[in-house]
């Protein structure tokens, strides 16, 4: 695969190899955690048994529990967490700012609002959708795109100024969340079991149809991600230098924002507004694998998956049988992490 491992000097080849070894280790952790995620519940099914059932063995009852109830939940957690993490990776790269993420830039808020408006407009008396569920991510995507477009336009000429971008992002996100809350209180959504999802993000009550929608959308988005990845390296430099190398940064930035919005929307459409994964996962990924872009994207995806599967496991272990949104866990861990990054930034940048 000369595409993935271009001709490198020994030093860079070593860096690249180390990065992919790290990705392999993270992938192993992700798989084990996913099996535990499927295994855990009112009855514990050990990981090896989970694999057997997934391979087609097991009694009917067991199969229903694993395949219909638990596996879709873990699958959506993995896909949504991964998608948000990759969105965060792209945003952090292209803004040269480790604080950038779908949450901080208002994209999660916009996507959530999009879905809530969609549900409010297109639900019937009994709270079931009058249209196909496939349109739900579309609504999320429209909301997400409008949110990031608003942030971008409000930041104006100084869109490259990290601080302005973040401030407007936080503001737009807050407005969207408030609107979401109002819609939920006055609209029909509060009665649905999905209510908690749009407040904090959760992955309960997921079916394979929804997993399928996300998986297909994600597969399409990933083609875009790989195409964009090749152009990411110059974004490590200041704007003038990056443009001097032939990267049309103003256009590229919009492309990346659109892609990050799509990824976020896919996640938010079914897992809701899970915060901070898009902030923490890419940051950790870069700490672990360093600069290689494709390895960084892979590691971000896997760490994002690990975080949301893990957060969902934690709420199930601690609060079962009450359904607490997984997003509360990511928020509890993510907020101090965010503050730590802000404070560290403050101390190094004077």
């Amino acid at each position, binding site marked *: 695969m*000369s*595409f993935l491992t*271009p*001709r490198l*000097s020994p*030093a*860079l080849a070593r*860096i690249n190899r180390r990065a992919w070894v790290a990705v392999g280790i993270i992938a192993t952790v992700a798989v084990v955690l996913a099996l535990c995620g499927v295994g855990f519940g009112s009855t514990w099914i050990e990981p090896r048994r989970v694999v057997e059932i997934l391979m087609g063995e097991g009694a009917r009852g067991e199969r229903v529990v694993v395949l219909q109830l638990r596996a879709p939940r873990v699958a959506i957690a993995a896909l949504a967490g991964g998608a948000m993490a990759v969105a965060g990776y792209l945003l952090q790269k292209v803004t040269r700012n480790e604080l950038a993420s779908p949450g901080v830039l208002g994209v999660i808020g916009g996507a959530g609002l999009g879905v809530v408006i969609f549900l409010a407009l297109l639900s019937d008396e009994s709270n079931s959708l009058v249209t196909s569920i496939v349109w739900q991510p579309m609504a999320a995507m429209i909301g997400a795109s409008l949110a990031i477009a608003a942030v971008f336009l409000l930041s104006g000429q100084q869109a490259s100024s990290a601080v302005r971008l973040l401030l407007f992002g936080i503001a737009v996100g807050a407005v969207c969340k408030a609107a979401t809350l109002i819609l939920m209180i006055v609209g029909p959504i509060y009665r649905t079991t999905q209510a908690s999802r749009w407040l904090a993000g959760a992955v309960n009550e997921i079916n394979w149809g929804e997993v399928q929608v996300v998986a297909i959308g994600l597969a399409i988005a990933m083609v875009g991600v790989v195409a964009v990845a*090749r152009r990411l*390296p*110059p974004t*490590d*430099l*200041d704007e*003038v*230098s990056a*443009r*001097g*190398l*032939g*990267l*049309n940064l103003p256009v590229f930035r919009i492309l990346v924002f659109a892609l990050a919005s799509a990824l976020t929307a896919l996640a938010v459409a079914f897992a809701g507004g899970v915060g901070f994964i898009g902030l923490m996962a890419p940051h950790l990924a870069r700490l672990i694998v*360093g*600069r290689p872009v494709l390895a960084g994207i892979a590691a971000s995806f896997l760490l994002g998956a690990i975080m949301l599967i893990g957060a969902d496991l934690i709420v199930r272990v601690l609060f079962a049988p009450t359904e607490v949104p997984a997003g509360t866990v990511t928020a509890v861990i993510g907020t101090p992490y965010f503050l730590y990054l802000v404070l560290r930034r403050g101390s190094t940048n004077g």
Partner: protein
Amino acid sequence: MDKAISVKALTIAYGAATAISAVDLDIAKGKVTVLAGPNGCGKSTLLRAIRRLHQPKSGEIRLGDMPISGLKEKELARHIGLLAQSPSAPDDMSVEELVRLGRYPHQTMLQPWSAADADAIQAAMFGTGVSHLSERRLGSLSGGQLQRVWIAMVLAQETDIICLDEPVNHLDMAHQIDCLDLVTRLNREHGRTVVLVLHDLNLAARYADRLVFMKDGSMVADGAPVELMREELIEDVFGISCRVIEDPVHQRPLCIPIRNSSPRFGAAPQS
């Protein structure tokens, strides 16, 4: 004269403010052209416009016979390299990683990486004397070393034309000379056309084949350093009264500033 770049009636505005107006300039192939002038005269804007980082309000820039407005981004980046005024890269990036970025415009979807890229990187690091630093992190380098690495990145781009925007600004005197000697060598030995923006008039006079004076967004004068380094012209452009003598070592004109004669800064106290 063979023209590398020709600028015709170029006007550039930031919003309502005109940064440069009606500039006509031919940049000679294989020569070192230095743009000089006081702060805010538009010299950096002109340099960035040549690299198409500013959209002209009117006028045209041609690369050889082609208008640059018709070139693709990467195509343009294979013709003109640019060292930004205050370039920045992450501290934890290695020297080799930065120099590699210079190959970005040469990589395409079908040909992501070639032997030519590896050779260009080696040559660029060797040519700027940073080969031994290749695994070092940028954050661990001195200012002079770092500037050499940035020049290596631009060099790896293998462009005929290299634009440098105040490359010696943050360097001490030894590294200023070191850096400009390096740039001159690239010009003399590799025939690269060099366009420099320099603050320091004496460095400009020493290194330029051709000197361009700018003031308030317009081109005031253009010629060999001996022609331009005249006391009345310098007073007019830079607002300093001065004496110009011949540098006894390099036989270039040398300006000795006497006092600020510009009313902008208030009258200089008479003693």
